[in-house]
């Protein structure tokens, strides 16, 4: 069977790439610590020596649109072009070409559908910064094939948080049962409290530091019960109008089997808190 060697759940901050490229005399004061924390986080993936990456993210109205909006979608293609004109424009993100892993895509699609998730699929998917930000941070050499899994955290009506958790559990069961000798890592990105296009955006911290502190504790301790007792579709509006991206973290808690994280770190930044979690479901030396 395949070996699930690492699970990474993190925020995706599109400004990291550009910030990390600045010479020290032009970099903002928080840049050095940010780069240091990301480098440490990258090691948590590197040490697991993965062969293939299952990557959970969410399209930001790039390819997926309101005339045909899937709730959960799995890419199945030999390649994925990445990043869009408006991400180059706003964030300075370069375009990328990622390799796909069609066999694992097909397996997750078949198995996911059979487990009761009517997954949409795409044979020609251009992924955006929800997928490429973790490539820039934890696998900048971009040398591994991926399976992109997109969730709708953006265009209501959204699936409920419990559904994200269950999909994460299903992905975990599928990977654990995949008849392959490959080493698999799952990397998912979401948000803590976040406001976009509203009165609380771009403040000195995330819009709701208290929510962020609770969220970090839920994720780090694997406390899905506490999390689900506090988080609903409606309640996620309160910490910030884009906080539904937290449901991708909840999906990743499902992948991790509600275990305590083996690695947890965060960084309080302007606009939003960065957070980095890694689990080694088969032990760090597996």
């Amino acid at each position, binding site marked *: 069977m395949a070996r699930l060697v690492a699970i990474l759940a993190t925020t995706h901050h599109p400004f990291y790439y550009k910030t990390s490229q600045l010479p020290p005399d032009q970099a903002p004061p928080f840049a050095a610590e940010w780069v240091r924390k990301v480098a440490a986080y990258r090691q948590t993936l590197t040490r697991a020596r993965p062969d293939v990456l299952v990557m959970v993210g969410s399209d930001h109205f790039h390819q997926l649109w309101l005339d045909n909006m899937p709730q959960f979608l799995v890419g199945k293609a030999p390649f994925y072009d990445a990043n869009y004109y408006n991400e180059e424009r706003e964030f300075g993100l370069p375009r990328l070409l990622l390799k796909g892993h069609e066999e694992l895509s097909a397996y997750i699609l078949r198995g996911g559908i059979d487990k009761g998730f009517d997954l949409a699929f795409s044979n020609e998917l251009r992924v955006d910064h929800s997928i490429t930000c973790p490539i820039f941070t934890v696998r900048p050499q971009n040398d591994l094939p991926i399976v992109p899994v997109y969730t709708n955290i953006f265009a*209501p009506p959204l699936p409920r948080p419990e559904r994200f958790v269950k999909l994460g559990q299903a992905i975990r069961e599928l990977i654990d049962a995949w008849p392959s000798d490959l080493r698999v890592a799952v990397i998912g990105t979401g948000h803590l409290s976040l406001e976009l296009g509203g009165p609380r955006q771009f403040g000195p911290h995330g819009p709701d530091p208290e929510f962020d502190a609770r969220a970090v504790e839920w994720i780090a301790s694997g406390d899905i019960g506490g999390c689900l007792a506090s988080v609903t579709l409606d309640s996620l509006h309160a910490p910030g109008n884009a906080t539904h991206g937290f449901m991708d973290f909840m999906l990743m808690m499902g992948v991790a089997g509600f275990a305590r994280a083996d690695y947890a770190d965060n960084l309080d930044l302007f606009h939003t808190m960065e957070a980095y979690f890694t689990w080694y479901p088969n032990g760090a030396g597996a």
Partner: protein
Amino acid sequence: MSRYLVNKFLFTIDRDPDLVERYRTDPAGTVAWWEAVQANQLLNCIAGEASTWLEFTDDERAALSAHDHVALFEMGAHPFLTLTLWIAMFERDHSEPLAMQLDYAARLAHVTQPYPDIAT
């Protein structure tokens, strides 16, 4: 209410560099052209398969024509779409980092929770 169509306008302008500049410099003209020529274009189909029923309300047309992001927010336009396009059009007019984004937020300071519904 045609919240979907407002979002479609923001989405299709934002993804086209020429239209971003056109909307920045001639908002009313761009909105009028877009509603007449583009609004009913089904995005994944040939032109002959266009829709036949989409149009703005007067308030929506006025808000888009006036670059009024506060009115768009209050109507339930998707805040991410509005913000992204506004950054593309107006960040260049501010000299300090994030000044545009903070000004954008300040103009929404009167908004209280729950925010307007954005469901389409």
